[in-house]
């Protein structure tokens, strides 16, 4: 035992605990199984060790030891690849697939959480060595709070759109949600099923940035996937006519959602659609572009 043993141990333990706290299983059911959790807790342990070990290395003037962190970066990029591959493989067999944009978003957050763990372990160990264990505990708590509050929770759909329930209707063979054309359903019996089980919603964007974001195909697929997971879906393989779809109104950028839920509760459905995360990869900010800004100034 030397002067660094306890601080390093503290950093490792606190880092692993932070990783466990970030690893919650929710409606996305991922990672739900024990083995998936073990993988991520172990990787969190490695990340915490790296963060904790960096501090004594710096204190002993072993600056080259910091290059170890680059190994960490490579290692955790591999985590992103692993998550992406697994989810992509599994996605083919989902009744309503997640879509690549959603998968990419999940993979990125798995990678970034490991960096949050490194950072927390680093701060924890540093504060322990410089001050004492209480300062270290306080520091990690603040780190965790900042990470949880600002870095890990993006906005959800309900923050950016107005969700309205609209009736679905048929004009000949054309299926409509409000006035947005969804698809052509030829067979009367399928039309009957859709009338019976289908539900329609319209998302009205709040501003110009949102129009592009909810128009993104990946974002739309994410909405369909999440609603199908939470509310169930009335479909099977071999019945492509019964597939939930989202189409866009080209005039004003509203999107019409057609879903076939097993739980037909309007309020619940609105809540579920509202809590779909806004994918980072779908976010666009046209209002921040120079040409748009200049236009605004001119007016």
């Amino acid at each position, binding site marked *: 035992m030397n002067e660094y043993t306890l601080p390093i141990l503290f950093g490792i333990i606190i880092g692993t605990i932070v990783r466990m706290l970030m690893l919650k299983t929710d409606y996305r059911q991922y990672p739900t199984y024990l083995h998936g959790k073990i993988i991520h807790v172990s990787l969190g342990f490695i990340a915490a060790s790296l963060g904790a070990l960096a501090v004594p290395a710096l204190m002993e003037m072993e600056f080259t030891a910091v290059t170890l962190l680059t190994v960490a970066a490579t290692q955790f990029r591999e985590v992103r690849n692993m998550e992406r591959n697994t989810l992509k493989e599994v996605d083919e067999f989902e009744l309503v697939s997640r879509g690549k944009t959603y998968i990419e978003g999940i993979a990125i957050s798995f990678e970034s959480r490991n960096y949050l763990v490194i950072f927390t372990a680093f701060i924890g160990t540093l504060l322990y060595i410089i001050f004492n264990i209480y300062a270290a505990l306080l520091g990690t708590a603040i780190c965790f709070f900042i990470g949880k509050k600002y870095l890990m929770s993006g906005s959800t759909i309900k923050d950016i759109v107005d969700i309205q329930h609209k009736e679905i209707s048929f004009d000949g063979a054309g299926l409509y949600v409000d006035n947005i054309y969804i698809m052509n359903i*030829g*067979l009367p019996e*399928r039309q009957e099923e859709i009338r019976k089980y289908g539900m329609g919603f319209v998302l009205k964007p709040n501003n110009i940035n949102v129009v592009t974001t909810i128009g993104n195909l990946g974002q739309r697929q994410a909405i369909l996937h999440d609603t199908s997971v939470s509310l169930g879906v009335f479909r099977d393989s071999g*019945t492509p006519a019964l597939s939930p779809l989202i189409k866009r109104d080209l005039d004003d950028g509203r999107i019409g959602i057609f879903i076939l839920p097993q739980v037909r509760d309007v309020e619940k459905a609105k809540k579920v659609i509202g809590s779909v995360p806004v994918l980072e990869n779908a976010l666009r900010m046209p209002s921040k572009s120079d040409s748009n800004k200049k236009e605004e100034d001119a007016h």
Partner: protein
Amino acid sequence: MKLEKAILAVITTDKTRVAGGAPIFICDNKKELESAAANIEAITDGIAHALSEEVFIIVKH
């Protein structure tokens, strides 16, 4: 080349209105048309779309 979408079959009650590439099924009446379309839809995993009262197509999406 992988085709994203393809017309797998054309089902009609009016044979003067169809010709060409995809397999064509000619039916006597609307009822037969609908049951043929439902069958082919199930068999091919396609979707039956109505172009008009007389012409249905089965499309693989």
